[in-house]
């Protein structure tokens, strides 16, 4: 199952994430990061929206305090993703050593979380953790490679090509979540996406939190009303 995770990752998800990280690396280089800072940011933050918020604020010379607050807010959803991911993986049922837990939760980000939600019904519970490990470690490798390549390739690749590459990540993740087996979650995807479009012009990045809570609550309420 570990191998199947790796194989599934060396596919659209790996290349999608690699190209997203290339995009981040290009933004970060423009902002004034050196190669080690870019690499360390990808490896230690491992969450695209937070990384982009970080690089964008760094570019305009914002105070370190503001950077800290912005990244904290942008990545608040990591908490929900970890809770939800631990639930999907059934972590409590299996004896997982602490070091493995640390790796599992550090690598828990949108792509790998959405993937296990998508695969949950096709893989036995006891195999899901090793599938996830293979998948997420491979995705991480692609992300690191993408960051490295992006730092140097920005000058060679045309924008026409790059923008199609960057389009793949949001597309891939939306198609994964929209196809969730659970009706409540599917409804949450449509409502959350819809609210984000409405609230972003008014509330900026806060719209993520607002749309998430509104969409998630509405879909859970409708499910239980039935």
């Amino acid at each position: 199952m570990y191998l199947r995770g790796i194989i599934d990752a060396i596919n659209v998800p790996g290349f999608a994430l690699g190209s997203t990280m290339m995009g981040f690396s290009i933004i970060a280089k423009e902002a004034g990061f050196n190669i080690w800072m870019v690499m360390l940011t990808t490896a230690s933050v491992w969450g695209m929206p937070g990384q982009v918020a970080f690089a964008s604020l760094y570019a305009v010379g914002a105070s370190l305090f503001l950077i800290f607050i912005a990244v904290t807010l942008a990545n608040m959803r990591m908490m929900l993703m970890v809770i939800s991911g631990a639930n999907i993986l059934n972590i409590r049922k299996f004896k997982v050593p602490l070091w493995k837990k640390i790796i599992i939760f550090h690598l828990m980000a949108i792509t790998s979380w959405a993937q296990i939600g998508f695969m949950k019904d096709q893989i036995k519970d006891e195999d899901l953790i090793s599938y996830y490990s293979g998948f997420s470690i491979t995705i991480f490798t692609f992300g690191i490679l993408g960051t490295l390549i992006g730092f140097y390739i920005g000058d060679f690749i045309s924008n026409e090509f790059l923008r199609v590459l960057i389009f793949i990540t949001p597309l891939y993740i939306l198609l994964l979540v929209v196809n969730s087996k659970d009706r409540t979650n599917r409804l949450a995807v449509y409502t959350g996406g819809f609210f984000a479009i409405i609230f972003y012009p008014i509330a900026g990045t806060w719209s993520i939190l607002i749309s998430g809570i509104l969409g998630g609550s509405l879909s859970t309420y409708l499910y239980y009303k039935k």
Partner: protein
Amino acid sequence: MRIDYTNFESWLAVLLACIATGVWRLVGVIFYNRIKEDGLLIKWINGVAYSMVAAVMMMILVYPSGVLSTTMVEDRLIALAIGIISMIFLKKLLYSILISMVSFALLVNYF
């Protein structure tokens, strides 16, 4: 005007960004151990997580920054709709992504 950071401040910024994310993951792990599985709370948390992910992705697609903002919002949304419709009918993730991606490339470069 751009303000340059000292070398120390730059690395401190990276460290802070790392802490800002790690802290949420840690809080998630602590919370998970206290929540009843299969309860209403976990159902709601899942719903909010799905909703938030969709919100982040729609934000990137509708209000992008960087290279993606050089394309038109109509093109991005049409390509997304093509992808979702393909997914509903074909039920194949890889094909749906390819169809949507090719449509996007064509829309952006030729229309």
